[in-house]
C-alpha cells in the first residue's frame, strides 16, 4: 500500500511537471505565432502600399504625359489607321 502511494506521488509529480512544461511550450509557440502575425501584418501593409503605388503609377494622366512629352507619341489620325477584320477560322 505504501509503495503504491509512493508510485502515485511520483506519477503526480511527473504529470505536474509535464503540465508546466507543455504550458511553457504553448506560450513559447504562441509567442512565435504572435511574432509571425506581426510580420504578416507588416507584409500586408507593404502589399497595400505596393498596390497603391502600382495603381498610382499606371494612372492614365501620367502615362499620357510620358507618352506625349518624353516619347513624343501621338494618337494616329483615323486616316492612317488600317482596320483588319478578324475572319473566324473554321475548326476542323
Amino acid at each position, binding site marked *: 500500500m505504501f509503495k503504491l502511494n509512493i508510485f502515485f506521488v511520483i506519477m503526480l509529480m511527473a504529470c505536474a511537471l509535464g503540465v508546466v512544461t507543455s504550458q511553457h511550450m504553448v506560450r513559447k509557440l*504562441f509567442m512565435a505565432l504572435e511574432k509571425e502575425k506581426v510580420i504578416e501584418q507588416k507584409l500586408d*501593409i507593404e502589399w*497595400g*502600399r505596393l498596390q497603391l503605388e502600382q495603381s498610382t503609377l499606371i*494612372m*492614365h*494622366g501620367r502615362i499620357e504625359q510620358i507618352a506625349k512629352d518624353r516619347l513624343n507619341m501621338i*494618337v494616329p*489620325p483615323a486616316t492612317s489607321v488600317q482596320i483588319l477584320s478578324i475572319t473566324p477560322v473554321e475548326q476542323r
Partner: protein
Amino acid sequence: MINPIKPQLKLSTWRSLLIFCMLLLGLVSLAGRAAYLQGMNHDFLQKKGESRYSRTLEVSADRGMITDRNGDILAISSPVVSIYADPAVVKISPEQLKQLAGMLEMDSEEINAKINRKNRFVYLKRQIIPDDAEKIEKWIKATKSKSKASSKAKEPAIEGIYFTYESKRYYPAGEFAAHVLGFTDVNDEGQEGVERGWETVLAGELGQRRVIKDNKGQVIEDLENRPPKPGKDLVLSIDRRIQYRAHEELKEAVIAHKARAGSIVVLDAQTGEILALTNLPAYNPNRRSTITNERIRNRALIDTFEPGSTLKPFTVAIAMEIGKVNANTVLQTSPGTWQVGKKTIRDVSNKGELTVAQIIQQSSNVGTAKIALSLDSQTMWEMFNRSGFGALTNLGFPGEASGILRPYNKWRPIEQATMSYGHGISASLMQLARAYTIFSSGGELKPVSLLKQDTPVMGQRVISRDTAQAMSIMLEMATKPGGTAPLAQISGYRVAGKTGTAHKLINGQYADKSYISTFVGYAPVSNPRLIVAVMIDEPSAGKYFGGAVAAPVFNGVMSSALRILNIPPDAPANNVITFTATPEMGDEG
C-alpha cells in the same frame, strides 16, 4: 534566592470552553467563507481575476476594395497607425514631450492636455504613415532600454503610449472619380457616393480577441478569438480609362467656356452600364481640405435642369409611333414664331417649310410645338413617363433626383408646346442619357447600373424598332452639315445625337443670359455601343449653343472611348465634312 512561588491559577472550565468555541466559530466561518467563494461565486471571481491580466483587443476588418470593370483599383484601404495613450500610466518628461510633439507635428501643449485627461484612453494622433510610427516606436523603446541600463539615465523611460493599426482609404484616381466613389470618414464609414450607397457590402465586421498579457505587455494566450470579417470587394461598371478621358475633356471645356459647372455621363448603349460619370467642380478625396458642399455635388445625378431641345426627339418619336407624322411630313415653321395662347414660341431663325426630319436636324421649336399640339396630352405624358422622366434611376446612390414631370391633366396647351422642346420639365443628366437608350437600342429603355453586369439586361419597349430606326437617321442628320451639331462628327464613325440649349431657370424666372448647353449622342450608328451625354452649366465665354459648347466635348469623349474599347469603325475615315458655322447651328430651346 527565593523560590518563586508558582501561582496557582484556578481556571474555571467555562472559560476554556468559551475560548475553544470562539476559535471553532472562527474556523467554521473561515471554512464557510472559503467554500462560499470557491463554490458559489467561483465563476464571478474567476472572471474578475482574469480581468486583472486579460485584455480585449479589437481586430479591425479590412474594408472592401473598389475596382473598375477591368480590375483597376479605384479605392483601397491601407493600414495606418494611430497613437494613443493611457493617461493613468503615462510617464514622459517635458523634454521628451517636446520631442514627441515635434515628431507628430503637433503642439506640445495639445499633447500635454490630452495626457492629463481623466479617462484611460485618448488618441494622440490618428492615421499616420506606418514608417513614421515605426520611428517613434523605436525611439520610445530606446528610452526604455537606456533607463534599464542605468537608473541614473537622464531620460526616464516613456510609459503609457501605445500604437494601434487602423486602415485609411486611398483613392488613386484622385479627383477624376471622386463623385462616383465618394469618400469615408476617419472611422472608415462611407459618407458619399458608392462608399455610402454600398456601405453594408464594403464594410467589414470587427473581430475581437480576449488575450492574456504578461508583465512585458506581450500576448501570451488567446482566451477568445472571433476573427474579423473583411468587407467584400466591389466591381463597378466604370472604365477608369474612359472616366479619366471624360474628366479631362470636361475640365478643358469648363475652363475654355468659363462655365460654372459641367457633367458627363457615358453609358454602354447595350447594357445600360455607366462607363463614366464625372462632374465639375470636383474635389480630391485624398485631401479632405478640398471637400466643400459645392464640390461634393454629384450634379449628373442630384441636380435636375430643363433639358431643352434634347427632348425634341421624344415628342417626334411618339408622334411617329402613333402615325400622326412620318419623317417626310412637311410642316410650315414660317415666320419662325408661333403664337400659342398669350405666348410666342420662337426659332433662332425663320426656317420656312421643314420636314419632320429637318425639324430634328435643325432643332425647330415651332415645328416641334406644332407636332406636340397635334398630340393628346396623355399620350405625350406616357411617352415621357415611359422614357424614364420623372422617375428615379435607382442606382443606389444617395440623393438621386427624379426630376419633375407634371401630371398631364394639369397641362395647358402652351405648357404642352414648351415641354415638347424641353421646357417646363426637368431631368438629371443621367435620366437624359438613359432615355436615349430608346434610340440607340431599337426602342427599348435600358435600366442603368453602376455595377458591372455579367448577364445581358432586359429593357422595356417604349417605341417600335422602326420608329427608333427612323429617329436614329434623323439624329444622325443633326450631326451632319445642315444640322445643329456638325462638331460632333467623328472621323471613321457614324454619330447620332441632339443638341440642347436651355435658358436657365433662376428663382422661377428664365434668366436672360444664363444657359445650359447639352449634347446627348451615341455611336457607332450602325450598331450603337456608347452613349455620351454632356452638360455644361452657364458657359460664359461667348458661345453658348449646345452645338458649339457641348458637341465638341462629346466628340472628344466619344472618339477616345471608341478607341479605348477597340470598337471597329463603321464609316470611311474621311467622313468628316468640315464647314464654317452658320447661324443655323443655333438651337435655342
